[in-house]
């Protein structure tokens, strides 16, 4: 299993745990006082699950299993591959910090984090598409 795939999948597993733990926190909203706005956390929960776990798992397995390009660069650009990894995770972490803080009446800094997060995630999606487009091919 290539290194980038291992990083994607192990990180995805961490997000799975984080998402489920956050789900537990949200489920306890009626019992225990919440430090942050539940509304802000719900979106984070959903995106930790769908982007952090599901999409990142797909990225990792696709990097491993999609048809190779050639002998020199079988999995496309290593740089672009790693860029995708860092962009997705940076974007998600900024969102996980900024969204609940902004929803709880936070400062302009949290707003900037969200804008930055959105840019990083969109670029990550573009990087993955560009790096894997030609790997979606026949024999």
């Amino acid at each position: 299993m290539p290194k980038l795939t291992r990083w994607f999948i192990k990180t995805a597993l961490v997000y799975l745990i984080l998402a489920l733990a956050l789900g537990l926190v949200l489920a306890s909203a009626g019992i225990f006082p919440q430090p942050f706005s539940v509304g802000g956390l719900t979106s984070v929960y959903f995106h930790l699950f769908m982007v952090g776990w599901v999409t990142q798992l797909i990225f990792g397995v696709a990097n491993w299993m999609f048809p190779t390009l050639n002998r020199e660069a079988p999995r496309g650009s290593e740089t672009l591959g790693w860029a995708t990894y860092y962009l997705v995770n940076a974007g998600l972490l900024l969102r996980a910090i900024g969204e609940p803080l902004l929803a709880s009446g936070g400062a302009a800094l949290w707003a900037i984090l969200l804008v930055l997060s959105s840019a990083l995630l969109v670029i990550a999606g573009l990087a993955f598409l560009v790096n894997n487009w030609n790997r979606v091919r026949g024999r």
Partner: protein
Amino acid sequence: MPPLSIWYVRSALVHLLIGFTVGGLMLANKGMPFAPELWLLRSAHIELLFVGWLIQLGMGVAFWILPRFWTPPVRGNETGAIVSLVLLNVGVWLVVVGTVWRSGYVLALLGRLSEVGAAIAFASHLWPRIVPRQS
């Protein structure tokens, strides 16, 4: 990877990028509101990513990877899979337009109907290929 899978997976990749872009715009708007009407795109964002990206990618990989027959055509009758590709993509965009355009509930309904058709067509193609190793 067979040609039909290439169509499925590349279409899924395009939907991933569009879905991420729509989501990114909504997130940025959440931080620094510049276009409140972006919230109308929430259902479209979900549709693009759940159906356009995830389900479509799953179908494309399933068509490629699941057991093949010993004799040609090795993937059996591909008509169902072809019909499914068309119905799924038409369905996604009918739902996207129908949910963004406030009076478009009929379009959204037609879109969902199309997606159900895609699922039935895909299942009808794939069913005979779900076999144990000895078959």
